[in-house]
């Protein structure tokens, strides 16, 4: 049975009919064509599917599309406004924090939530927060570096 949902997606109101067993990630990828959100596992471990729901990071493979009615969903595609990169996107680029790119959207969305909660995380705090986002390419070294660099930039902009 389909469920009708209306929600804000990257700042725009949208509506869709979703199957009662449809996962949020499948709704985003298949109905809205937002393929930047990836599926890397089937046990909610890898974090490639992280998006923001009402501002908090969520594994979109672990939420039903039917739960999203009335929420605000932000995906990697909506992170850079007016063509300008988000400081995390810029830092990932400058510090070579991605190789194959598959984990990157989830990694950036997760890190964005961290920096909202903790604007100046230590290396250990970054590593601890990203525990739910797997990367097989970078060894995390440059990801941690990029997140902390972005924190510096974002801190400056905020001050």
């Amino acid at each position, binding site marked *: 049975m389909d469920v009708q949902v209306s929600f804000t997606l990257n700042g725009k109101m949208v509506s869709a009919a979703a199957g009662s*067993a449809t996962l949020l990630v499948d709704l985003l*990828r*298949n109905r809205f064509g*937002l*393929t*930047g*959100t*990836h*599926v*890397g*596992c*089937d*046990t909610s*471990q*890898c974090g*490639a599917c992280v998006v923001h729901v009402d501002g908090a990071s969520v594994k979109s493979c672990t939420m039903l599309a039917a739960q999203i009615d009335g929420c605000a969903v932000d*995906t*990697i*595609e909506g*992170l*850079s406004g007016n063509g300008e*990169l988000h400081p995390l*996107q810029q830092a*990932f*680029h*400058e510090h*070579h924090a*991605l*190789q*194959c*790119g*598959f*984990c*990157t*959207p989830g990694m*950036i969305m997760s890190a964005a939530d961290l920096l909202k909660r903790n604007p100046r995380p230590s*290396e*250990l705090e*970054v*590593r*601890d927060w*990203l*525990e*739910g*986002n*797997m*990367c*097989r*390419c*970078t*060894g*995390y*070294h*440059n*990801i*941690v*570096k990029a997140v902390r660099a972005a924190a510096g930039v974002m801190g400056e902009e905020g001050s």
Partner: protein
Amino acid sequence: MSGGMGIGAAAPRSEDRRFITGRGRYVDDINLRSQQYAWFVRSPHPHAEVRSIDAGQALEMPGVTAVLTGADLEADEVGSLPVAWGITSVDGSPAVEPGFPALADGRVRYVGNPVAVVIAETRAAARDAAEAVNVHYEELDSVSSAAAAMEEGAPQIHEAAEGNLCFNWEWLPSAMAPDAKANTEKALKEAAHVVSLELVNNRLVPNAMEPRASLADFNPATGQLTLYTTSQNPHVNRLLLCTATLKMPEHKVRVVAPDVGGGFGSKIYHYAEELVVCWASRRLGVPVKWTAERSESFLGDAQGRDHLTRVELALDAEARFTALRVDTIANLGSYVSTFGAAVPTVFYGPLLAGVYKTPNIYATVKGVFTNTTPTDAYRGAGRPEACYLIERVVDEAAAQLGMDPAEIRRRNFIQPDEFPYQSPVGQLYDSGEFEGCLDLAMEINGYAGFDERRKQSEARGRLRGRGMSFYIEACGAAPSQAAGQLGARAGLYEVATVRVHPTGAVQVMTGTHSHGQSHETTFAQIVSDRLGVDFANVEIVHGDTGEVPFGMGTYASRSLAVGGSALVKALDKVVEKGRKIAAHLLEAAAGDIEFSDGQFRVAGTDRQVAFGDVALAAYVPHNYPLQELEPGLEETSFFDPENFTFPSGCYICEVEVDTETGVVEIRDFVAADDFGNIINPMVVEGQVHGGLAQGIGQALMEHCRYTPEGQLLTGSYMDYCMPRADDLPSFKVATRCTPTPFNPLGAKGCGEAGAIGAPPAVMNAVLDALRPLGVKHIDMPATPNAVWWAIEAARSGE
């Protein structure tokens, strides 16, 4: 002119923008009109006869188009999955290569073995229907460990492989080195010291973050098949589809590997699933798509390592190595995968000299069938296994003789003036300065301060250990003739086409394919450097047999050494033609024309013409030597190098062990590598980091485990312990450079180094920490559980 983005620049990557904004295009992101979905029915048993397959109920379910089985595959004369490298046993007989049908032919031999495929209108419908396919299995006895499979009375997996033996291989073969075996045994007998170890090299699951996926689109009107697939080497997939399995002519098959989300070897092979979707699309006349769930990746992606080795090292009274003998049992899994027989043999035996002047080396390897997922090349492929045993036994020798691990290595290193160095196991090493790398690593580590750090750790209730390893590896899988003599069934050159457009913009079509390696940046740096064209005016095209003439793909750290060199050769041809055009335009002799910084110049004058103007003249040949020269500016080169390249490096790891919990934490990790010339140091560092993470993962966390019968125990990220951000330290990496003389770039390759050098460095550190407690041995992975039990066993005197 290169905009500061030439060879040697730490240029940020041009491919990043699409990935950081969510605009990458991986196979699962592609959808075609009217596509249907495949879901595989897989064996739940490690070994069984398939008595019957009843698809009646499944076919009646909504949206189901077809259920296909091995019988249909056979009726359509689809070939068995091919073996691309043949191995010869000691007695001269070829390795046993049982047919590997994409869907079972009456017998299943591992859990996950595809038995049937359901094609339906939605993925959910295909999956539901797959559960309704009723397969009647008659279970057979089964075995998962190679040692158990060799025992008398073990279940027989293939009729043709008596005792489950695929091959019994020796290196060097007696035909090439008649005295190697006898000399090695003699040296072992006469040695002042002999150190021996029995080592397990644990089985690993590659786990690229993007699960494999394939989307096949057969057009019945044109007979054209387009396959989008997660591949490191689309031309190889096309070659195998066309010659071995589907048997269609190449011009009717286009294989596209768009953005590929990591591979580490696991996306080299021609797998059952991609063949089945191609065949199903051809049979049904609709596009067919399959995307693996992670659970399927654990069952179906070729796995890595799984060796059991006895190694003996002979030393004279001055601790100089006099002989090394190696006996290995390699678990091949249930079938021979594409390179499954080559990895534990020709990618392993020829590296057994390591960086040392050991004069006598002899190795045997038995390749054994078991009821497990087939094994094949995984990051390093044979070289990590060789490096691990050498560096473990060398460290053990140092410990037994009470020597410093650095000193015993120094005493046995091949010296800089001995290159090119002919090793006793068949490789001609290109270059290296091993002591230089050792000194660099020791300096960064602060080697002399270790005792103080150890005391500080002890004060905190932790045991500190330091481990060292020194690897050498063979990169750039090639040259073709050598590979052919060793059993390769394909050429191993690489191909590049340089297309200069009339405006001077440059496109490069290359047969290698990035699945994270940054070729779009590094290859463009080479073009920018050589042609003086702005970096932004260069585009790298790869991953599409429809656009790239040919190629053998990306694996074995070969892309830059072989593919980059093909690019240089093609660029040289472009410059040569440009020189002739410029000579005409400048009314000078071609021999007087110099080319640098994007300008063709008459030597010793200020008369010059820019590269872009030469390109324009080539396409608008109004003032052009048409009698001698064709218009246009596009050149192709097939580059087949004369040898492998040999990166090397010294890794030092310091760990702290909590003896109460068995937890090992890495406190310092230094990598000092020699990759020859480097195009982009930032990219190289990234490659090293990633390799180190996988190597540390193997040493401390990862282990693909089966029950003795062959049920996979580690079938998800809940059970298979992947390294996460909080499991790893930051790394200290540095490089030295001895360029290889074997390719025009002087570049050696860096993709696998970390995964090769890290495991022995970590394990040597763990053992260094635990030796004071009497722990003499521990196998990978050194999990808290394994470490705790090793400590307990030592304490109770076991």
